[in-house]
């Protein structure tokens, strides 16, 4: 019940295209859903996060869509650029769990020039 399922495992997108990564969770106690970007040898860096009281959040080219009833959320990267090539992790946390984050398995994104 603590798992967060992430797909796809890897994704190749052409420059300028839209990258879409999906995550699903089961634990309804989760109330915080961040996305992290990780480059090789670096720590995860927060990209964007959403709470379940909104269905969508947009920051620049990055948008989170959240479907509370389906217990799913997704990351959309508009106008994908080669510099976006990285591994993306979704995560979920809850105040009750001291914001212990449960991470998805990661999606390796490659944006081809």
């Amino acid at each position, binding site marked *: 019940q603590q798992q967060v399922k992430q797909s796809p495992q890897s994704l190749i997108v052409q420059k300028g295209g839209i990258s879409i990564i999906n995550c699903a969770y089961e634990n309804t106690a989760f*109330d*915080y859903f*961040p996305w*992290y970007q990780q480059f090789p*040898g*670096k*720590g*995860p*860096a*927060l990209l964007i*996060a959403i*709470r379940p009281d909104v269905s969508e959040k947009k920051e620049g080219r990055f948008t989170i869509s959240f479907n509370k009833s389906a217990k799913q959320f997704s990351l959309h990267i508009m106008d994908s650029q080669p510099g976006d090539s990285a591994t993306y*992790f979704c*995560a979920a*946390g809850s*105040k009750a*769990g*001291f*914001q*212990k*984050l*449960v*991470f*998805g*398995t*990661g999606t390796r994104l490659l944006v081809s020039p």
Partner: protein
Amino acid sequence: EPEVTQTPSHQVTQMGQEVILRCVPISNHLYFYWYRQILGQKVEFLVSFYNNEISEKSEIFDDQFSVERPDGSNFTLKIRSTKLEDSAMYFCASSVDISGNTIYFGEGSWLTVV
């Protein structure tokens, strides 16, 4: 921008040796965490720490692991007797509070046990 700093960036140790990984969280943060990432796998929660005590720990965080905030600025993870399977990248993280504010991660300490 404030950041979480970790040392060392890479450590190689012999099996059975003790290792201490050090972290300096962001100065006004109150909640501290250790996570680890085995090569090519997902990031896994180890432990959270608040008000000088462990608030939650995972099943990975067994008796071989301990955490400490020895001097009000550093936050350390000690592995008492390392095993080969402890080889991983260890990330320290911190947040201001638990109301959903950003959890900031450090760059990681890569531990290789041989």
